[in-house]
């Protein structure tokens, strides 16, 4: 311990007026993005829009006013995940009648493309100019569309994509907050390298087989989205694997460790995103003058991105998803968001705000669609008995 563990000074609260001024641009932007330029028709859609708008901006308001990031980010992030699953599954059942993906649908390019596939498609795309996925290049849930989003969000947030965009991450985030204290406290540091090994293997195997290996064999989130219909022993084995991974990495381990174990210990896209963190303008820094090495940040980081070495260097690891949990947790306020190139010394919350604008905007845009859709379906279900 370098210093006594004295209580940090109380979080400085902004005045209501100043907070409102800072939130005004976000209100305008979210309104613009949620409406898409035109007001919805129908009572339930208008209600969903209004409720979503108020909910999102209330969370942003609280983020700005209290200086706490993760507490409010996680509410929206978990809501996104739940609403995405609800919306996605209900759409599948409405269109196809089941969550199972048939070979016929794959031949017709009917599989929706998600960002987790991206690492596997890169080498074949460069060498063969084709995408090894049974989806559509353009249209709804299209490949080109998701690539554009991935490029844009990666440029803006780096690996912040994992805590401010990924519609799967909220599931683990939610499960990791169920218990007050972790039951499994120590996980060997070597497992934090597993995502890079998974990335290497799936990229190479996908190039070898010209098929998305991670999707076929490993993706745990097929459990809550869609999966290939079981017509052979091979597909049955694949199903057992991904369901087991979902139960283990997305549900059980996050509950027991209070960490995002799939994100931090397995996800290959997360490993790739760590590279984008190197060039991203936002980062989390550690003020070594304030740090008393209580190690609370190490214990709370959901993706194992801080260790003793980080504290020594004053920087978190490249795997940081910029969720803000360590920043909120540090009793000395030693951890802070920072904009690369700028002064490290003062005006700390300015950097957090500069980060919050693009980050919360991304979260609001992606969540807006699914939260509104889920709300409309829920209202329809309650009032009419059907979701459509």
């Amino acid at each position, binding site marked *: 311990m370098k210093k006594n563990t004295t209580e940090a000074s109380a979080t400085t609260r902004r005045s209501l007026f100043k907070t409102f001024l800072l939130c005004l641009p976000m209100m305008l932007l979210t309104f613009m993005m949620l409406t898409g330029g035109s007001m919805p028709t129908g009572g339930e859609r208008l209600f969903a829009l209004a409720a979503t708008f108020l909910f999102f901006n209330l969370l942003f308001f609280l983020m700005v006013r209290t200086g706490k990031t993760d507490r409010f980010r996680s509410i929206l992030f978990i809501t996104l995940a739940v609403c995405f699953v609800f919306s996605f599954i209900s759409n599948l059942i409405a269109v196809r009648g089941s969550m199972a993906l048939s070979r016929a649908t794959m031949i017709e390019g009917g599989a929706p493309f998600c960002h987790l596939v991206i690492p596997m498609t890169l080498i074949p795309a460069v060498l063969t100019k084709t995408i090894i996925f049974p989806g559509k290049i353009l249209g709804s849930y299209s490949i080109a569309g998701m690539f554009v989003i991935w490029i844009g969000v990666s440029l803006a947030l780096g690996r912040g994509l994992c805590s401010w965009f990924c519609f799967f991450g909220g599931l683990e985030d939610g499960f990791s907050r169920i218990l007050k204290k972790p039951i499994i406290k120590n996980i060997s540091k*070597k497992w934090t*390298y*597993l995502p*890079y*090994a*998974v990335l*290497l*293997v799936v990229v*190479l*195997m996908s*190039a*070898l087989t010209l098929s998305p290996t991670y999707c076929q064999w490993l993706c745990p989130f097929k459990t809550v989205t869609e999966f290939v219909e079981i017509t052979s*022993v*091979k597909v049955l*084995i694949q199903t057992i694997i991904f369901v087991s991974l979902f139960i283990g990495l997305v549900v059980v381990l996050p509950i027991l460790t209070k960490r995002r174990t799939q994100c931090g210990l397995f996800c290959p896209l997360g490993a790739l995103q760590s590279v984008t963190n190197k060039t991203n303008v936002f980062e989390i820094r550690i003020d070594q003058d304030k740090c008393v090495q209580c190690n609370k940040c190490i214990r709370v980081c959901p993706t194992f991105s801080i260790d003793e070495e980080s504290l020594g260097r004053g920087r978190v690891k490249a795997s940081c998803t910029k969720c803000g949990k360590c920043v909120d947790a540090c009793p000395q306020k030693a951890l802070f968001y920072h904009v690369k190139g700028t002064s490290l010394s003062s005006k700390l919350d300015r950097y957090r705000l500069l980060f919050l604008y693009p980050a919360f905007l991304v979260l609001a845009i992606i969540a807006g669609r699914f939260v509104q859709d889920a709300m409309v379906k829920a209202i329809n279900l309650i009032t009419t008995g059907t979701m459509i």
Partner: protein
Amino acid sequence: MEAFILGLSNGTTCVAYCAPVLVPYLLGEGKGILQNSVLTAQFLLGRLLGYLLFAVLAWGINRSILQGVSKPDLVIGPAYVVFSLLLIYYGFFKTRTSCKTTCTHGLRHKLMTILPVSIPMIAGFVTGLSLCPPFLLAFTGAVEKTTVIQSMFFFFAFFLGTSIFFIPLPFSGLFRGFSALRIIGRMAAGLIGVYYLYSGIMMLIGGYTI
């Protein structure tokens, strides 16, 4: 391609564990990049010759044993299962260095005392005799090939996969920060082991259901 990936996933481990023993001896001090490159190339050539020797041995096993068997999958399948389990253990749970604990370590040590190890090619040949689990799997894969050319090509691809990580060796300071790469390489090898475990089981099931 399969052999190349097996070699690639294990390549970091090959370099990280085996090369540090030989590289300082080979490279010495004050040698230029060109000379270092020539020495490394000789070393790699020695390794290639060792692997090709095993390729011929694998083909010999195919001709003498496998050709006479009515269901070769029932021979290859169990081999895949056993070696892949070894590879999974090696990839995820084994913590000590692998070079010393392979069964050919004694032979290699003896060869290195008898033969002039200062000749890089011989040093490379000798290090190629390491029977690590990835090598055993590659050997099993090569046994399946029906012609000697296919077997040699298979091992050549494995060699290429392992050797890519030797390419930066002529440039100094490459072993700084290698521990992460070593762990990633081993875990990747373990994951490849899972793939071979599945292949082995499917071969066994397929062999029994025909």
